[in-house]
């Protein structure tokens, strides 16, 4: 017999507190039926004897202590999965949104996932050619990596994400899938992604989970969990190479903050809950490869840094979990350089094992080291020239300035549809370096220098 509970004793923000519940299960899903026929979904987040706190995904608007009945399901939140999910659009809780009906489940999977045993992981080593010079050469994306894009409002992170997806799709042909999770993004941004996926003929390989800016905020907390569950299914059971694009992680963290403060939890920095790190990690760590399995989950989370501040808790904690970051820079962006990748703070932690001989080309590590070291000096030269004027600079500083300008305009900057091969990128890098005096090329072996850096 299904027991309906009606004894709601408190409603606070998205939380509903019920009393007199028999055998509630921690984290189980409950359905809330309103008098007007509406059904909402909630999750048990705290149990105190018979008193149960429910987190209602759709919000508590219109609910009262008298008009709502609650039924517990006894199960934690599960997502219906089958190979048919490719090409479908779901809402933030994994319910179909495209009018094509329910997914006939081949499998139901707990959305919370389980941690991958470090022993079972395969260390990611194969690089993904994105066709974007600044990424391929200096912050190489590796299959199974989590590499976020740190951006700010108004910069072209969406375009960059689309370009990465489009250009890396080509190499993988059949085994390729994209999972797209939108959290609190605007309707037209979601529409942009959809039209771009359609234009590049990958739409039948894309699964979309959309929680848009006007959708319920608490639902947003579940959106990446649903998306990653779908990604894990496609990767580790269907053997596909899955690229997960999650945007915008800032909205996600803010939803978490809202929920946390309504629970009256003790806040840490900037009001975010103390467990923000663990919570973000439970998402990001779901990227990876498993030994003996064909598929992989690669994550490209996008976050907008509030006020372009990289020390804000969201980018800061993300950077501590992810394996590097691609940082976009407003100054480059305003110079009209696309993609405005700020190469010095950008980093790919996994690239050292996935580049060089046998992977890309033997000179790749030396080139990336030298380019970054020289570009770091360009910054010093620029600072100096703004004080004493360009004319007073030493010849080597002048050469650096020229190099810096060309590096930005020719190397970093490229077209939205321009896809450079790794050889083109590396050769271009050497060509730019060749205009610097020899004494500036102090990070490179003589042999490599002779072979690739032709003056």
């Amino acid at each position, binding site marked *: 017999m299904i027991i309906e509970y009606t004894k709601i004793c408190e409603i606070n923000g998205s939380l509903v507190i019920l009393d007199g519940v028999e*055998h*509630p*299960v*921690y*984290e*189980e899903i409950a359905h809330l039926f309103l008098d007007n026929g509406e059904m909402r979904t909630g999750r048990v987040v*705290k*149990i*105190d*004897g018979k008193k149960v706190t429910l987190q209602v995904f759709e919000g508590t608007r219109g609910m009262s202590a008298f008009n709502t009945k609650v039924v517990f399901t006894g199960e*934690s939140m599960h997502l219906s999965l089958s190979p048919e999910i490719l090409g479908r659009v779901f809402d933030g809780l994994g319910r179909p949104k495209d009018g094509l009906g329910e997914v006939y489940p081949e499998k139901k999977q707990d959305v*919370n*996932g*389980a*941690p*991958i*045993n*470090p*022993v*079972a*992981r*395969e*260390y*990611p080593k194969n690089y993904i050619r994105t066709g974007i010079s600044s990424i391929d050469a200096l912050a190489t994306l590796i299959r199974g990596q989590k590499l976020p894009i740190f951006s700010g409002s108004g910069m072209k992170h969406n375009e960059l994400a689309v370009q990465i997806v489009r250009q890396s799709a080509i190499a993988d042909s059949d085994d390729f899938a994209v999972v797209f999770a939108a959290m609190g993004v605007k309707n037209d941004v979601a529409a942009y992604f959809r039209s771009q996926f359609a234009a590049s003929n990958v739409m039948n390989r894309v699964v979309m989970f959309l929680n848009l800016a006007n959708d319920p905020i608490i639902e947003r907390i579940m959106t990446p969990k649903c998306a990653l569950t779908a990604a894990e299914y496609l990767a*580790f059971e269907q053997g596909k190479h899955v690229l997960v694009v999650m945007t915008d992680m800032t909205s996600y963290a803010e939803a978490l903050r809202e929920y946390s403060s309504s629970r009256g*939890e*003790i*806040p*840490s*920095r900037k009001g975010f*809950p*103390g*467990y923000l*790190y*663990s919570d973000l*990690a*439970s998402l990001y*760590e*779901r990227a990876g490869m498993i*030994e003996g*399995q064909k598929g992989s989950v690669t994550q490209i989370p996008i976050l907008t840094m509030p006020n372009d501040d990289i*020390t804000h*808790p969201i980018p*800061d*904690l993300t*950077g501590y*979990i992810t394996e590097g*970051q691609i940082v976009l820079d407003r100054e480059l962006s305003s110079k009209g350089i696309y993609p405005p990748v700020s190469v010095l*703070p950008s980093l790919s932690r996994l690239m050292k094992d996935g580049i060089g001989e046998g992977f890309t080309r033997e000179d790749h590590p030396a080139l990336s080291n030298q380019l*970054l*070291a020289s570009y*770091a000096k360009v910054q010093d030269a620029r600072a*100096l020239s703004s*004080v*004493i004027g360009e004319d*007073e600079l*030493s010849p080597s*500083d002048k050469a650096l300035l020229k190099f810096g300008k060309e590096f930005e305009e020719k190397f970093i900057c490229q077209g939205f549809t321009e896809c450079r091969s790794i050889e083109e990128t590396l050769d271009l890098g050497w060509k730019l370096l060749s205009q610097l005096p020899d004494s500036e090329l*102090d*990070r490179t072996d003589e042999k490599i220098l002779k072979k690739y850096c032709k003056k």
Partner: protein
Amino acid sequence: MSEYKIYGINGPVVTVRGKTELQMTETVYVGENKLIGEVIGLTDEYTTIQVYEETGGLTPGEPVAPTNSPMSVTLAPGILGNIFDGIERPLKDVQKISGAFIDKGINIPAVSETKKWQVTVKLSVGDCVQGGEVLATCPETDSITHKSLVPPNVSGTVTKVFPDGEYTVNDTIAEVTDKFGQIHELKLKQRWPIRIPRPTAERLPLSKPLITGQRVIDTVFPIAKGGAASIPGGFGTGKTMTQHQLAKWCDADIIIYVGCGERGNEMTQVLNEFSELTDPRTGKSLLSRTVLIANTSNMPVAAREASIYTGITLAEYYRDMGYHTAIMADSTSRWAEALREISGRLEEMPADEGFPAYLPSRLSDFYERSGYFKNLNGTEGSVTIIGAVSPQGSDFSEPVTQNTKRFTRCFWALDKSLAYARHYPAINWTASYSEYTNELSDWYKENVSPDFTDCRKRITEILSEESNLMEIVKLIGADVLPDDQKLIIEIARVIRVGFLQQNAFHSDDTFVPALKQLKMMQSILHLYDRSKEVIARQIPISKITATGLFDRLIKMKYDIPNKNPEMFDTLCSDIDKAINEILR
């Protein structure tokens, strides 16, 4: 034994209603699945338990079973070369049970209970034994001999001894009758509570360095065996890389590597790399002297809090055998955040930035477990702690960094701008310090060269002079400086790029012996002294630059192999030749 029932659940915190007989820090089994938990609070109304696994699926009314023993780890042969989670569950065996993803409620022994070890018994009947004495030995890995010890709380007369032979960790090796007539069966295996330091005879002064082969550490900011160091740095500054380098090359006998709330792929990398690399001193696999403890950032938060203590207890156990152990904790900030998270669930009053008020005392308890000791059995051993700190927003004034600084005497501050310029290890030479320098100078004088400390002093002086000069250069450019100051800038560049910067991927440069470090310093200082002669004669510095000597010194770390220190003599005579040429 009485059983209790779950009343409330909130994240990793579970409560039991009413007064119970449970003790503080007692291990309990929670729920039908027997999840492992620890008692962390007792009041009239509630007993509070932190659970080391995900609590989803628990329901009120499920049993809570006491064990009457505090949170403990198993100490026995079979630990080395293994990888455990935060509460010492062997992850390789977990994989066999639950596949690639970790399930809940897996209770398996930490070390194999069926494997037979080739045991040599060291006691004989009639011996009077104290806690800590060696009971038996067995080869644990191909480079380390495991010495099973009489548990510290057991003493008496040996009344029965089994012959040498093959035994499992659960077989009795000897029996000891204490003064009350109680018989203790001694096995290869013993248990020890993780939050209590293992006893020792006495603490000895620190006088030997932990040689790491990293120039900026060994020479400029050395750490003593038994010391404690902290590595603070924002993300991407190379904390983990530095920890890996130390774990690979430092001259400790045993390495405990604790990945506390860090990336899963990193632990996989350590596991792969260490099984391939060989220990330069024994020629055996590095993994045979290493224990890995992995609590990745998505594994349960309460076990993260325990993982640090599990690590240090294992380190102390091997110290008791007379080994020098080093524990790398990456990162202690995640451990502090785990404390904060649990403290928040308990609704305790927060102090700085939401961290609990007991954060400093917990940190000091942990770091004070380092030291150079005389063990109960008379041998000497040490525990060196190297803790990474991940300050939020790279802000070193946050509570974890500040409190860690108080309890560690070695501070290797990693610098973002150095890391951006790909200067690794990105240890900032002005913000870092080591208080061990004086205590260790005698060792360097005796074992490397009497010259060593003077060279170090001069090198650091040049670097600090350079940082003063750079203030001026930033304003007016380097060209207007007088030649003697230009020389300092040039020599400092040689020190920075040629000496401090070290390439972890170069086969020779990844580990540099102390003698080569000395020779490198001497060569740089020799060039400096000779160049000063040139400048004193009013000859412009450009003449020296033209000889290419500065660039040659920068490349000496690659050009001169570790095993050919005599090549430095050629280098020095080349310097003399070139300078004499100019002076002529």
